[in-house]
């Protein structure tokens, strides 16, 4: 009360007994400031925790990383183990497969070629073979087809298609004196095949052909079966190994490929940004801290690095260092460091003019101490956000490069390679592109959402906002 009076006459002399000493960790101060006193990072962490999407994203990333480590070890497949008889398998927990006897020998059936005078005299394409039929049980190990003889022709042509709209590809030509054919060329289970047998002479293929519809039974040769189950007997039924996400065009397990791919993609995705941001921090803080001519010169260098085409640098590095994960990481660092250096330099430039930096300089603190104690802790927020957003872009670039054949070399795999191989068969087996695309999308999504959450949490302007 008398304080106001004292202030009014301009001569306020505080007596020492107005002051009470407090210690730094005095909790009673919290109430005066209106909220508990917490550090910047504690506050950021609290706000990040409140952001459900960011936390879910972070969990997803952790789970994916663990899966990438554990799942390939627990599978009894490697990423490049082929089951050529089990291509494009849909997701399954193991299927029943018939074990062939393996001792079947195809006997070409020959007939006496009848010279038909009337046919010989014809000046048109011959008639089609009639009564096209399957002999025995059609299996994926082989389908035997037989037909009635047509006389006076040059031979038969066997076509196989997977739809009735087209004739399909000509499998083989059969000489005129034979009336059967044994097809063993890459038959897949669960597919319906349409066979067409034409007779041909010098005028061309016969018209009005019969279509033979065959859906072969899933079967494997005994030696293949013994690789799965050593006790497999010919003629019995065994179970194939489980392919939880199916197999690709060489019969390789998709789950193993995607998880090994995740290892490669995530490793590149983390290693490259960490390296180039680290480099960016060093470059950016030197450039920003010294300013002037040094800054000008260093920034012109980044300008040039940023405009040289990325592809050129990457390809040149690959020629010099060879294909592989290391090359890809070096290449990514080489093309991306300039951008992060610029961002960090901007941040340092802003901080450099802050009072606490001036104060430190006045106290005679050296360059390294100022950077390490005053500048770096303050750019950490920016760096963290930069990093979370750089990871998806590195994974993207890796996928893109592998997609155009400049990244990881097969048989090693990565998400880019799995996507590329899936894209080639997308129309017939959409799942093989959908699954890796979904993995890339989800991972990008998780990193982007986490990055957004971090940016919001670390932005002091949003402090206290809900």
């Amino acid at each position: 009360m008398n304080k106001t009076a004292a202030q009014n006459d301009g001569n306020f002399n505080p007596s020492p007994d107005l002051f009470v000493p407090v210690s730094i960790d005095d909790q009673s101060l919290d109430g005066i400031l209106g909220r508990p006193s917490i550090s910047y990072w504690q506050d950021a962490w609290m706000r990040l925790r409140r952001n459900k999407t960011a936390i879910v994203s972070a969990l997803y990333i952790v789970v994916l990383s663990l899966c990438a480590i554990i799942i390939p070890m627990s599978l009894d497949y490697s990423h490049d183990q082929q089951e050529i008889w089990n291509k494009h398998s849909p997701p399954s927990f193991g299927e029943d497969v018939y074990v062939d006897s393996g001792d079947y020998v195809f006997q070409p059936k020959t007939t006496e070629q009848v010279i038909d005078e009337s046919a010989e005299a014809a000046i048109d394409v011959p008639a089609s073979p009639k009564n096209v039929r399957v002999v025995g049980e059609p299996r994926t190990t082989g389908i035997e087809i037989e037909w009635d003889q047509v006389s006076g022709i040059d031979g038969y042509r066997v076509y196989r298609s997977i739809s009735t709209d087209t004739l399909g590809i000509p499998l083989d030509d059969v000489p005129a004196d034979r009336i059967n054919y044994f097809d063993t060329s890459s038959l897949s289970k669960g597919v319906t095949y349409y066979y067409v047998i034409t007779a041909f002479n010098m005028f061309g293929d016969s018209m009005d052909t019969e279509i033979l519809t065959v859906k072969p039974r899933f079967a494997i040769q005994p030696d293949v079966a013994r690789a799965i189950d050593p006790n497999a007997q010919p003629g019995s039924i065994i179970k194939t190994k489980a392919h939880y996400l199916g197999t690709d065009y060489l019969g390789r397990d998709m789950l193993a490929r995607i998880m090994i791919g995740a290892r490669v993609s995530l490793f590149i995705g983390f290693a490259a940004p960490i390296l180039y941001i680290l480099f960016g921090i060093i470059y950016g803080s030197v450039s920003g801290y010294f300013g002037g001519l040094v800054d000008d010169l260093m920034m012109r260098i980044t300008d040039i690095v940023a405009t040289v085409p990325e592809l050129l640098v990457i390809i040149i590095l690959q020629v010099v260092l060879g294909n592989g994960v290391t090359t890809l990481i070096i290449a990514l660092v080489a093309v991306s460091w300039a951008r992060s250096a610029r961002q960090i330099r901007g941040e340092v430039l802003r901080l450099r003019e802050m009072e606490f930096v001036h104060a430190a300089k006045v106290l005679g603190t050296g360059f390294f101490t100022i950077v390490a104690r005053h500048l770096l802790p303050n750019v950490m927020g920016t760096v963290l956000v930069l990093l979370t957003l750089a990871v998806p872009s590195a994974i993207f670039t890796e996928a893109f490069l592998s997609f155009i054949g400049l990244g990881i070399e097969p048989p090693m795999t990565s998400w880019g390679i799995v996507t590329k191989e899936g894209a080639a068969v997308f129309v017939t087996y959409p799942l093989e592109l959908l699954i890796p695309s979904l993995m890339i999308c989800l991972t990008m999504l998780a990193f982007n959402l986490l990055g957004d959450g971090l940016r919001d949490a670390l932005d002091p302007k949003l402090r206290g906002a809900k």
Partner: protein
Amino acid sequence: MAVVTLYLVATATFILMHAVPGNPLQQEKAMSAVIRQNLEEKYGLNKPLLQQYTTYMSNMFLKADFGISFKQVNRPVNKIIAEHFMPSATLGVMALFGALVFGVILGVFAALNRNGIPDMFAMVLAVLGVSIPSFCLAYFLQHIFALQLGILPVGGWGGFAETLLPAMSLGMIVMASMARLMRSSMLEVVQQDYMKTAKAKGLSRLQIILKHQIRNAVLPVMIYFGPLFATITTGSFVIESIFGIPGLGQFFVNAVNELDYTVIMGLTVFYSGFTILIILVNDLLLAVVDPRIRLA
């Protein structure tokens, strides 16, 4: 300034290119010494590197002549660029400006209905847009619109219909990030004092949104627009090959693989020049939108 940057880019590319072991002639089948000598003479490869450099640079900057291709025998690089630039440029410009227009509309739409269903829809679309690689999107779009529905051509080049799917695949990422930027920028502008002034003046809601909110909000979005152009040019190679577009992308990738010196140089300088031009156009546009920016 632009010319200096171009010159430095050209020099850096020249050095990088010649740092790669081998030369464009070596990769071919074994040839006799006489033929090799003649070819080297024709392309000037027998001269010292410094002389090659000065000849090349003076031809390029003074006569705008990029030389002739090594691999596509006797085909001038200028001609390659002239013939194949239009598809690439059309595609890139369509993708970018489509992305800008739709991104801004989506962002405005989301911000005006903040926390409503349209906002959620727009933001889900925007987040999905930045998460899907352009080549995956290209295959999906091609499958849905061309193969299943049959309303757009599968690929090729010619009419307007052919440009839609590739432009969409290429522009999706840009559109999504534009929409997100626009939304947050709109929400920031709403809190400004001049918005209250406008309301106090008795302007209609539409006038406030069009003249004050959008016009101010679009500025920070436009600043990001120029640099995004670089993203587009890298992505275009895959998109061009998926849709069978006769653009420049394939020439560049092949040239780098085959070490076709003149084509690499020509395309690099051309691309960089084009990027610089786009950034310049963007700056000019920015000045039109924002009268506070004075053109020096």
